[in-house]
């Protein structure tokens, strides 16, 4: 088991190197000389050269790549060209925002999807189950940002029950914080829940045909009772995979939702600095998002081993 985990970690590290190289190469193609753009019009060649030296953009690409990677290993993502501050200092304050948005969205989507998915599995031939499946199918097709726009207009402006946008830090006002996250979380979670319901349903349909479920039913457990007692743990294996994928897609969805609700998260940071073509910030944020996705994948694989003892010795 330890060998499996170690092997997985090695692959994870190699993946990070590959991803960082890919990101760096793409960012090299950014048109325009950062020094020139920063200085504005009328800058002399001498001024531009001095600025390029100050930014370090006059060094060979390989040196810049290695410096960047070496810095990241120490938690230093370099210095923003446009604002002259540490990229990690820009990223830091955005993490609680995007983290809370993504985390709560995942939580809420699971809370919605589990009961409805189980219902859809148990009653799959009755109207309730069909209705749940149909609603989920439609929900999957709705762009999260559209849901966000509609929620913001209805709850925020027409009915005025929740703030239509904006972010209040937890430390400033915990209730305001919760209220400011409510609509964005709902917008993301509803759409994700629709995706999740389908997976929950199929995972539990599998369970329904298993011997242990039938046995439990035979000895007198109710259908829901048997599902909850035996089904959840057994279905969790396939659900963990799905949750991993979900979290990745929630992170990306958060980029757009942050725009709709003007949240100062990682996505807003990325888009702001894409407009300014600030390579260091773009590289850093994308690397962080990719790192998150790779990490989630790795954790999902490791968790298989933990959940299912049969896999502990098996090769994948």
């Amino acid at each position: 088991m330890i060998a499996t985990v170690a092997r997985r970690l090695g692959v994870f590290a190699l993946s990070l190197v590959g991803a960082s190289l890919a990101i760096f190469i793409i960012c090299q193609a950014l048109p325009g000389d950062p020094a020139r753009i920063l200085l504005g019009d009328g800058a002399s060649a001498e001024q531009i050269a001095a600025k390029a030296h100050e930014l370090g953009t006059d060094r060979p690409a390989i040196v810049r790549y290695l410096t960047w990677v070496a810095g990241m290993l120490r938690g230093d993502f370099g210095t923003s060209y446009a604002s002259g501050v540490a990229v990690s200092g820009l990223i830091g304050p955005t993490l609680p925002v995007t983290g809370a948005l993504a985390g709560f969205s995942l939580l809420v989507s699971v809370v919605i999807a589990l009961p409805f998915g189980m219902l859809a599995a148990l009653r799959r031939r009755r109207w309730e189950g069909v209705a749940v499946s149909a609603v989920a199918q439609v929900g999957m097709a709705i762009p999260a940002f559209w849901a966000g726009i509609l929620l913001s207009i209805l709850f925020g402006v027409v009915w005025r029950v929740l703030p239509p946008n904006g972010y209040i830090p937890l430390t400033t006002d915990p209730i305001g914080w919760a209220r400011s996250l409510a609509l964005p979380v709902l917008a993301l979670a509803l759409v994700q829940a629709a995706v999740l319901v389908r997976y929950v349903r199929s995972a539990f349909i599998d369970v329904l045909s298993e011997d242990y479920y039938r046995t439990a039913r035979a000895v007198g457990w109710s259908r829901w009772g048997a599902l909850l007692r035996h089904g959840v743990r057994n279905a969790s294996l396939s659900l963990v995979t799905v949750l991993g994928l979900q979290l990745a897609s929630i992170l990306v969805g958060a980029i757009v939702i942050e725009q709709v609700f003007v949240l100062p998260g990682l996505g807003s940071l990325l888009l702001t600095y894409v407009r300014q073509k600030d390579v260091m910030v773009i590289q850093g944020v994308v690397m962080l998002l990719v790192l998150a996705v790779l990490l989630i994948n790795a954790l999902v694989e490791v968790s298989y081993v933990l959940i299912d003892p049969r896999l502990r010795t098996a090769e994948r």
Partner: protein
Amino acid sequence: MVTRTPHARFFPRRLAVALTALTLAAISACSPASSSSTGSSAGTPTVHAPAAKTLTVAATAEPSTLDMTAGPAVAPAQVQLYNVYETLVKIDGDGALQPLLAQRWSVSTDRTVYTFYLNPASKFASGEPVTADAVAKNIERIRTSKTVGAKYSAAMAVVTGEKAVDSSTLEVTLSRPSNTWLYSMADTAGMIADPASFDKLGTESAGSGPYMLDKWTRGDSIALKRNPNYWANPGRFDSVVFKYFPDPNAMNAAMMAGTIDIISNEQAPDALSQFADTAKYTLLEGATNMEVTLGLNNSSPALKDLKVRQAIAMAIDKKKLITNTEAGHGTVIGSMVVPTDPYYEDLSGINAYDPAKAKQLLTEAGATNLTLRFKPAALPYATAAAQQVAADLKAVGINTTIQEQQFPAAWVDAVYIKADYDLTIVGHAEARDLVTYTNPEYYWRYNNPAFTAQYQAADSAAADAYAPEMKKAAKILADDAASVWLYMMPNLVVTKATVTGLSKNATTDSFDVTTIATR
């Protein structure tokens, strides 16, 4: 000298402008700071309610640095000019010069030597007095430092020397008379910072204004707090927060929800109707310095021909454009001049809307079946205007391919630096930016020695000849269809009804909160 002055103002949106606008206007009425021009008697403390008083101003573009002179963006100046950093003189809401750090000033008879008499009470937030020597160091920094943005150094290029005669008397010598220089001294290029903090301007406050930096939450807001050492009437608010909304609809929603006090400039004018209730909201509509300009690349093969440029100008229905993109707000203009400029005259009749004549000119020029590369800045007003312009051009037989340029970086690179475009749209928010047409390297690629000569003559002219001479220069541009000036961006401000004291015009880079009060 003047030729290098690049007043680039690609400031993002109207925000800049907008903000700016509000600023000054009302100064004369109630400005605590400017009233000190008469002197001295510093700080009659105003009575504050016991609860902390906060003013929240919604703005669009967040600065990337606090250093107002680091680059061309005006976002740092919106927050800080007049509020955190003061200038020797100040431009009021009508565009006139007023005393600020200088109580008065005089000009030599050959108009090349300016003597400023500083207010002896003035001091920086650090407690150090604002001496003539400190001011001289600031002027020297702007015109010689390598780290200062080119447009600010260019504005000071006419200065040959600055000398502290005594602790409160400063003498500045110019290489030739210049009518525009003193206006520059009243704007961002004239900022006066504590020389001890020159290397920390990007992150700290070192000004003499009524407010200073409290907290900058990147991606969200900049909070100013009252400067306890302010030398004149102190600020009315314990805290002034500039909150940034990249999206205009989000800004409107925040106003509806009551979380902000002022929309510094309304970017979605169609939404103004939701603020029609005068018991709750106040609407101000005034002037800005921003000319929303359809830039023509005068060096591109098709647009070298005067007839083609005139045809483009005549193809565009500017009134309809304002109706469709600004919900009818804004003023049609005919040259790179706005109504608050001292040399304004209505030139919108030159090359005015006449599609039939436009088609005829295109035929005469042999330019039928023209396709132009149209690269507007990806800003809300510019994107909307570009589509309307494309429709108008299509109607006279000119095809366009629109490619929005992300602002600022992509636009600056493709249009501003490389001039790789035929048409573009961006707002030029800087005051008195007629000067850009004297620079053949500027992205208009406009090279007309007759215009440059006229402009320089006007700048050097006696004060009373300044406006008439500059009018002639503006008319040369209009006749030449050097660009198509679509409209003056309106300064549309929405405030809670409890907010008073805002100027309706935006005449500098600043969003001046020193005149604002709340009931």
